[in-house]
């Protein structure tokens, strides 16, 4: 196997993921509607209730919409990561995961390629969301107030957070048996990660109500995703959280590759229906 083979294989995986993305319109629409409801309804309603004081990277008082936009971007990637992991479980049942795994290329490479493909799809979704949010800003219904440069400086962080959250999904798909329905993931992964993070409220506010919840939220990898996105939208880098997100991403990926290693017998145990 030469580098050319790796390259072709990688392109093939990305190409398929893109095709599936464009063929599953419902999934795309759902991925857009969810954050838009939060932005246009929830944030508008909460604006009056919650005043957000000046915290980095913001230099003035900001409205609540401005505050939660990065959190919603990260939420899009979180859902995407979980959904691709679910589709992997589904794929495995349907067998198309098997098609992937009988490729002669190394398994870690196949999984990383799939991860990158999923991340690319999540970034497409993020930009579709930003485009609509920008349009709504123009109509002055709400204002998300992202500087033009921010739309570009956010890209590297979207790659990092997309990979980290995708790797988490892949990890879950390889180790946990009961991933068959999405409700389980919503309850046990998405909701806790989303609510115990800085996506909806600044963590210092959280600290006022509960010290331990504050520490949980500070160390939540999803908070890292939200914060690196938030800072990059304003041309800044949150180095600590960037390092943390990278470390988590590598850890999740390593465990996922281990989970899909045939020698570790995890798949064996899962596919334990001897037929």
């Amino acid at each position, binding site marked *: 196997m030469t580098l050319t083979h790796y390259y*072709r294989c990688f392109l093939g*995986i990305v190409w398929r993921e893109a095709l599936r993305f464009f063929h599953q319109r419902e999934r795309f629409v759902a991925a857009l509607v969810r954050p838009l409801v939060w932005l246009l309804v929830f944030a508008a309603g909460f604006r009056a209730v919650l005043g957000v004081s000046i915290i980095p990277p913001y230099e003035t008082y900001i409205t609540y919409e401005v505050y939660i936009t990065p959190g919603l971007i990260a939420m899009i990637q979180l859902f995407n990561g979980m959904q691709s992991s679910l589709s992997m479980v589904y794929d495995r049942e349907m067998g198309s995961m*098997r098609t*992937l*795994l009988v*490729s002669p290329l190394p398994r870690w490479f196949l999984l990383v390629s799939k991860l990158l493909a999923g991340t690319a799809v999540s970034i497409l979704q993020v930009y579709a969301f930003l485009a609509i949010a920008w349009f709504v800003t123009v109509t002055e219904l709400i204002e998300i107030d992202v500087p033009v440069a921010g739309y570009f400086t956010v890209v590297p962080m979207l790659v990092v957070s997309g990979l980290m959250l995708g790797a988490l999904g892949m990890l879950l798909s390889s180790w946990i048996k009961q991933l068959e329905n999405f409700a389980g993931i919503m309850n046990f992964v998405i909701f806790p990660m989303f609510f115990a993070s800085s996506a909806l409220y600044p963590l210092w506010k959280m600290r006022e109500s509960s010290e331990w919840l504050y520490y949980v939220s500070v160390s939540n990898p999803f908070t890292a995703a939200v914060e690196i996105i938030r800072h990059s939208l304003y041309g800044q880098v949150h180095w600590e959280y960037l390092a943390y997100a990278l470390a988590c991403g590598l850890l999740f990926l390593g465990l996922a590759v281990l989970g899909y290693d045939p020698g570790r017998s995890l798949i*064996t145990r899962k596919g334990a229906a*001897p037929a």
Partner: protein
Amino acid sequence: MGHSRQAIRAPATEAGVPALEVEGLIHDFGAIRALDDVAFANRAGDFTGLLGLNGAGKTTLYALITRLYSNRSGSIKIFGHDVRRQTSRALSLIGVVFQQPTLDLDLTIEQNLHYHAALHGLSWSEAQTRLEVELERSGLSERAHDKVRTLSGGQRRRVEIARALLHQPRLLLLDEPTVGLDVGSRHGILSHVRRLCREDGLAVLWATHLLDEVEEGDKVVVLHEGRVLATGGVPEVNRRAGARDIREAFTNLIGGLTET
């Protein structure tokens, strides 16, 4: 005719090497022994029927050969390449048709095949050439741009077989490929694969519990409760089991065992 083409494709050094050689294979699922000391071989140009009831261990065996699971003991060699140590080389020589359907229903036949070709490192133009050849052989050329969802069960199987052959493997593994198909499609697929075996010198391992899919000239491996009860040519297996045909031989073999 088949012999000469096979000779062209197989390098002289590999002339005597079995396409698939399984030795001393044991596999457990927890406390359950799924495969117990399984051993057999098949050669280029052999059509081997892997016969066993549901639960005999056929699918487990396929998962081990394709390295979905890892074998702890025993060895599996593809043209002399151990699947555990030379995984990449071994896998590149195998084409697989799994028991469950594995096509993307929302993509076209051609898109499905291109994806698979990419996984095996083929370039786009190579893939295009190869898939045209294989679709032609399966009589599906005109449907190339149709979504898989619109195909019948038999046609989907043909696509999966065409896909398994894209990277020109020399060993084709099929796990109960005719399950759920009507008699006509079953016959069509069976004769298609037999032709590939004859014309291309492809080694075929065909798992089934339908004994009428086996012919007199085939090899068989009888697998029951994880153990190989008989291997060899059909007449030989029949004779040793004291039976007139393979159906009787199979019944004698597994019946004799359950009684003891």
